[in-house]
């Protein structure tokens, strides 16, 4: 499934299938058993939980993955990473901490990262999708 670049989502985004985001998401993204791809055009301000996370766009917020986090060469991440495996390509921008000790934190465990480099702005609960 794809979320196009004209789509803005504020709130909580969860699902049980692989997802590619090209738009903007603010809040929380939860795909515990699936692959989340943050495309080159995507701008994410959210806590992210997924099985595998591939970052090609921009993420401000903590990312937690059960298996792997992969930041590609144009990817930008300001936040803390938690996953058993983390790959960061040459050219990627990263600021924060990388925790490879115990794997990704479970969704809802907001204390898994000791030192948030960037805290997403609190938002109201409930999804709001705005097509532009």
């Amino acid at each position, binding site marked *: 499934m794809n979320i196009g670049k004209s789509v803005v989502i504020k709130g909580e985004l969860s699902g049980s299938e692989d997802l590619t985001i090209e738009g903007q998401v603010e809040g929380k993204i939860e795909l515990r058993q699936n692959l989340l791809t943050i495309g080159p055009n995507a701008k994410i301000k959210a806590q992210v939980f997924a099985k595998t996370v591939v970052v090609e766009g921009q993420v401000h917020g903590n990312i937690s993955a059960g298996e792997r986090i992969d*930041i590609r060469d144009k990817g930008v991440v300001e936040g803390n990473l938690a996953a058993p*495996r*983390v*790959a*960061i*390509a*040459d050219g*990627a*921008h*990263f*600021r*924060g*901490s*990388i*925790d*490879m*000790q115990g794997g990704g934190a479970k969704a809802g465990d907001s204390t898994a990262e*000791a*030192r948030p480099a960037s805290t997403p702005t609190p938002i109201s609960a409930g999804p709001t999708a705005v097509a532009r």
Partner: protein
Amino acid sequence: MSPLFHWAAKKGDGAAPERPASLITESLSTSRALPKFIAALSHQSAPVLLDLGPVVGTNVSFFGDRLGCKMLIEDLHEEIEASIRERAPESLAGRLKDRIAGVAASPVDGILCWDLFNYLDRTAARELAASLRAILRPKGVLHGLFGTVAQPGATRTRFIVQSDTAMKCRTEPWVPVTRQAFQTGEITRMFEGLTVVESVLLQSKTRETLLRKP
């Protein structure tokens, strides 16, 4: 203005400097201190490692696989670059102190301090060294690479770990800045209170130093 920044200031309006590809070089270097650094950390459970340079994915993977550690990336090159662009060299020591203060809440077991001090004036270098001493846990180790030749330049070096004993040195274009030289005695004084475990002059005229907090 500090002499350190004169060359940079002549470049004009602070806009991004040109980055000729010809400045990119690579070489391989043997390390005697890195295996001791890794050994020191591998004795600790869940060590925390602080990297003070720009993130290098290969290093993250290497230390993650070898040590299962938590890595903190605090790219102090960002602050050096910003102080040059803003022509505010006097602000650099404070900027660095603030960045280190951000991680000081929890002490660290290891510090990677590569290609950093040579871009600092003496005041900033001393203050940064004091901050690093403070956040290092007892028995913690600091692996430093210090250039021993002062020279102007518009490059920086990324060190990419290849194995326990080998590092690739990649020189790449950067902001124009004069590199300061640091000799053994000065390094020892800056990090007074830490024990020198290893100090080796590499062929690249870089001094590799491993320091341990008692």
